[in-house]
């Protein structure tokens, strides 16, 4: 037996996560895209802390629709606002939208998916599947629009009856969450059903581990790789959907976003004014692209088939 143990010592100690991280960092494209995402995050953080892009709303009536210059790196818009600052500021908006939507939608999806999968074949599963089915039945933009409105109405009621303000600010977030969680829930459900039949879950039953603990200690952590990837997908979808929703008039409020800038650009581009369009679509494109590649690399790194 000593031989075997000697052998064992030569293997480096690593968890699944460190292994995934190590694997991830070997992926050149993944690392580049990850650093881009980090850079964006840093920019967003700086905006949130008020370090830069503080003058995004300032008007310069004499500098209407100018091109790039020393003062305005990416030119100005029709109100003479600095497009560069607006694009930078929008980074914060994008992260706000992306993070809120990705986190909540993934969490909701994880919990529902887990319960549904664990209780597959019972009425609990049927119930959750029913809800998911109902939501999936309604076309995406229509559902988002409907939820957005309902939340607005609700926000007004809340404001009127309880004096809660600012709820309507999250109308779009809630609308997106309401549609995004189902995909995660379905995936997690499938995975949980698969895991549920693995012997280690049976082993947990055999030593008398109670149900909730089995779900959240034994099963849920084994879906983390899916959740992480789903969260990144939700993040990207949220940012991209925001553009369309802004165009439709359901976007973020009281702030500027790439979506709003592109919506503005829809009128300007044919007039030969491209500043808004280029700035916003470039910022958006680079982030979404980086995030997509990052998500891919992450998926590769976390793929349990490849890990073991």
């Amino acid at each position, binding site marked *: 037996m000593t*031989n075997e143990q*000697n*052998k064992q010592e*030569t*293997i480096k100690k690593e968890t699944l996560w460190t292994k995934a991280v190590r*694997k991830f960092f*070997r992926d050149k494209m993944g690392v580049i895209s990850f650093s881009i995402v980090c850079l964006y995050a840093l920019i967003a953080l700086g905006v949130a802390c008020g370090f830069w892009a503080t003058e995004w709303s300032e008007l310069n009536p004499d500098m209407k629709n100018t091109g790039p210059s020393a003062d305005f790196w990416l030119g100005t818009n029709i109100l003479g606002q600095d497009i560069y600052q607006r694009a930078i500021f929008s980074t914060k908006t994008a992260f706000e939208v992306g993070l809120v939507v990705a986190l909540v939608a993934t969490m909701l999806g994880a919990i529902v998916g887990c319960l549904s999968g664990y209780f597959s074949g019972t009425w609990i599963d049927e119930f959750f599947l029913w809800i998911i089915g109902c939501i999936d039945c309604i076309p995406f933009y229509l559902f988002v629009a409907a939820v957005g409105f309902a939340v607005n109405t609700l926000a007004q009621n809340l404001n009127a009856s309880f004096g809660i303000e600012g709820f309507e600010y999250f109308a779009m977030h809630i609308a997106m969450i309401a549609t995004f969680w189902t995909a995660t829930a379905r995936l997690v459900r499938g995975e949980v059903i698969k895991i549920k039949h693995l012997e280690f879950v049976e082993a947990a039953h055999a030593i008398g581990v109670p149900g909730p603990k089995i779900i959240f200690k034994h099963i849920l952590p084994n879906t983390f790789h899916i959740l992480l990837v789903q969260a990144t997908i939700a993040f990207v979808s949220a940012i991209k959907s925001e553009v369309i929703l802004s165009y439709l008039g359901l976007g973020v409020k009281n702030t500027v976003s790439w979506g709003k800038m592109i919506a503005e650009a829809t009128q300007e581009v044919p007039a030969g004014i491209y500043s808004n369009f280029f700035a916003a679509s470039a910022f958006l494109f680079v982030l979404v692209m980086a995030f997509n590649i990052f998500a891919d690399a992450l998926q590769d790194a976390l793929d349990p088939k*490849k890990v073991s």
Partner: protein
Amino acid sequence: MTTPLLSVKDLVIEFNTEHGLIRAVDRISFDIFEGETVGLVGESGCGKSITSLSILGLIPSPPGRIGAESSIKYQGKELVGLPEEQLRLMRGHDISMIFQEPMTALNPVFTVGNQMMEVIMRHKKVNKKEALKMAVKMLEDVGIPAPEKRVHNYPHQLSGGMRQRVMIAMALSCNPHLLLADEPTTALDVTIQAQVMDLMGDMQKKQNMAVILVTHDLGVVAEFCQRVIVMYCGHIAEVGTVDQIFNRPQHPYTKGLLASVPRVLEEKVEFLPTISGTVPDLGNLPKGCRFADRCERATEECNAKPPQLTIDEKTQAGVACYHPYK
């Protein structure tokens, strides 16, 4: 027994993994002669299946590849580096293969007849009708009852044993000279395994082909093969006739392996003899003999340099060990 049907020389198979390049098979050589049955045995991960796949050029690439100096000669024709189109003509025609898991090895969405006819029509210039006739004949040969009905069945409608019979029928439908059987009975129950092994023996005699039987089951080898190649960790440990290997094993690994197999109808022993330790990781191989750190007879020499396998031309036997049992 002069010119071998298949001659493998210095076969190297490498895989590009996240741990870097690993050699799953490292410079192995062996010959297969017409009509003989050779067992290729070893524990999981020793490279036996990969070796059989490499003969048909089926190593998934990337990540796998066959080393540059390797040579696989079939009837004197070099297969390594042969264009894909030419290899394709040989697959299923000159050299056939059957796989471990008959459930997944057959395409689930086509009838067995369809799949068999595809093979027959590809390699023999016959029309659909004739191909069907040949397929039915083949199924009859492998002992499938009511073959003209079964030919229209989908794989999932057949039992495991039946599927393996279909697989064999398909493999033999073009009268190959060499059959590669990759763990053909591992997924089957013992009673079915017996049926299938018997069938294979019959078919081999009928068609006079050579069979390479890849398996980890020493019992199957002992009953079915004439010659045995024992592999360990990408190397060939020992080659010899069944009699030599089972009655007078020379390599400590072969000996240990044979000892640790539980057997029926012997006096009950308290504890089984074992080989201590585990198979080394392919990414982290010892410098010398790969069995050295599990071997009771290991010396400094063993740890320094791997022993070479020398095969006696006449007996086609040999052992790769500095301190073989005599």
